[in-house]
């Protein structure tokens, strides 16, 4: 992202809305607005300070208009880029462009969903595709299942290694009071759960809950005047390659292999400099693919990399410390919450699950069916 400068903006506020199961008739915009005010309270800014609004959601077709109307604000800059769960990482990059150019000063990125209350089918109806729909894949699950099947075939990845990802996520979730899942989980329980789309059982798949979130970003200079330690945006990268899984050329390689290097180049660091990773784990294969494509292990080694509790608490690399989309929270497009955990780790706010000396975290978002891939690297003051 040539032109964007490492550390020119920072996250100053971050918050979830209420999560889990919300009251009947709660709207996605109720959740966005609630999260926005919590994120503003987090940094001491007021609604009147907000001059840029970034919103994407599946239940609200024109997000920036709906949230601006609800809050009765008139943002100077707005963006409703909708590329699935990674939309919000892209919004960070776009907010950085706008703030660096002086088009706005305080940007809010917000999301909300009531998919548990209204059902996934109602919250996120799929477009008919004459070349795919007749075969009745359960999308997006079957698309990721076919990526996992190919990875298993090509690299010897096993269902047990996939299950390791779910078990690690659950162990982290048990350290997070906000996590949806409260009971331990074993490899055998993952393998023997209800099969959904081979090789995935229901425990290889993310949760379906209600919820939302918001983050507040501003210039580095203004960030230093606010309540909490700024979390600087060190690097961003974004790419998209297809909309339907049939058009992905190699099912074992994702766009993280493009967005990751972009973000690392901008940040001027390497994977070994990252203390904690927040990887969009819609399915157990995702962190495996992203660890490879982001450069944390060689291509094909992701399954063996996550084995033996390597990404669980006490393992060799802290991944998805919130419990992830698999065990903490997954309200549809989960990318904003992927970033919130990475931000909190740099702030040192994570209590029992806090990773020691976490100066650099990486949040990676995934959208559609491995379609859009966006990476954001966050850092503390020490990393500038």
């Amino acid at each position, binding site marked *: 992202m040539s032109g964007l400068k490492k550390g020119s903006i920072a996250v100053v506020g971050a918050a979830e809305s209420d999560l889990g199961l919300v009251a009947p008739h709660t709207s996605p915009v109720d959740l966005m607005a609630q999260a926005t005010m919590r994120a503003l309270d987090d940094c001491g800014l007021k609604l009147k300070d907000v001059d840029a609004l970034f919103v994407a959601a599946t239940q609200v077709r024109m997000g920036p208009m709906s949230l601006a109307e609800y809050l009765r604000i008139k943002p100077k800059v707005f963006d409703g880029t909708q590329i699935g769960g990674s939309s919000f990482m892209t919004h960070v990059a776009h907010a950085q462009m706008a703030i660096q150019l002086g088009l706005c000063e305080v940007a809010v990125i917000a999301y909300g969903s009531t998919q548990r209350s209204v059902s996934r089918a109602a919250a996120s109806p799929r477009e008919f595709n*004459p*070349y795919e729909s007749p*075969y009745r*894949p359960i999308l997006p699950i079957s698309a990721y299942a076919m990526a996992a099947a190919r990875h298993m075939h090509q690299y010897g990845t096993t269902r047990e290694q996939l299950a390791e990802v779910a078990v690690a996520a659950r162990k982290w979730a048990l350290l997070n009071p906000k996590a949806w899942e409260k009971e331990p989980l074993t490899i055998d329980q993952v393998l023997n759960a209800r099969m*959904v789309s081979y090789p995935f059982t229901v425990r290889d798949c993310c949760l379906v809950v209600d919820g939302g979130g918001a983050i507040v970003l501003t210039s580095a200079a203004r960030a230093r005047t606010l309540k909490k330690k700024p979390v600087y945006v060190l690097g961003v990268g974004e790419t998209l390659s297809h909309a339907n899984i049939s058009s992905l050329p190699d099912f074992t390689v994702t766009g993280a292999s493009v967005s990751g290097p972009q973000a690392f180049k901008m940040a001027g660091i390497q994977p070994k400099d990252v203390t904690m990773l927040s990887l969009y784990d819609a399915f157990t294969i995702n962190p495996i693919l992203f660890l490879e494509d982001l450069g944390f292990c060689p291509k094909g080694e992701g399954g063996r990399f996550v084995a033996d509790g390597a990404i669980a608490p006490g393992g060799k690399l802290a991944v998805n410390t919130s419990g992830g989309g698999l065990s903490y929270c997954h309200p549809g497009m989960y990318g904003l919450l992927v970033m919130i955990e990475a931000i909190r780790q740099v702030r040192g706010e994570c209590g029992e699950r806090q990773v020691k000396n976490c100066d650099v975290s990486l949040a990676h978002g995934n959208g559609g069916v491995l379609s859009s891939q966006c990476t954001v690297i966050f850092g503390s003051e020490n990393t500038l």
Partner: protein
Amino acid sequence: MTDLTKQSPLGVYVEHLNKGELAYQFSKDDNKAFFYPRAIAPESGSENIEWRVSKGLGTVYTTTAVYYKGEQPLNVAMIDMDEGYRLMSRVEGIDALQVKIGMRVRFKVHPGDDKTLPYPVFTPAGDAK
């Protein structure tokens, strides 16, 4: 050249299926087959596109078995056709979990129904070359 006021890429594709043929497009400027059918060739943007009929043989690139309540597992697979393009489909005639990556498969037409246009499906083709 596709005149979209006269015919659509999907329309031509379905006409072929109604004749028992699996059609695909070939970009003469790119010297490359592509799928799904389009009015414009991807990458070059060329309109110099030729419709071709596939020999109907392909290889399973990846596969899954989908579990719907109260139904037998349903196969969904990606098929790499010998002519150099890929499509989503289903391998029929064997258990969904017995469909394996690398398996050779042969095209046949599924006639569709009053709600669904005809579409291609596949059956195992042994060691067909």
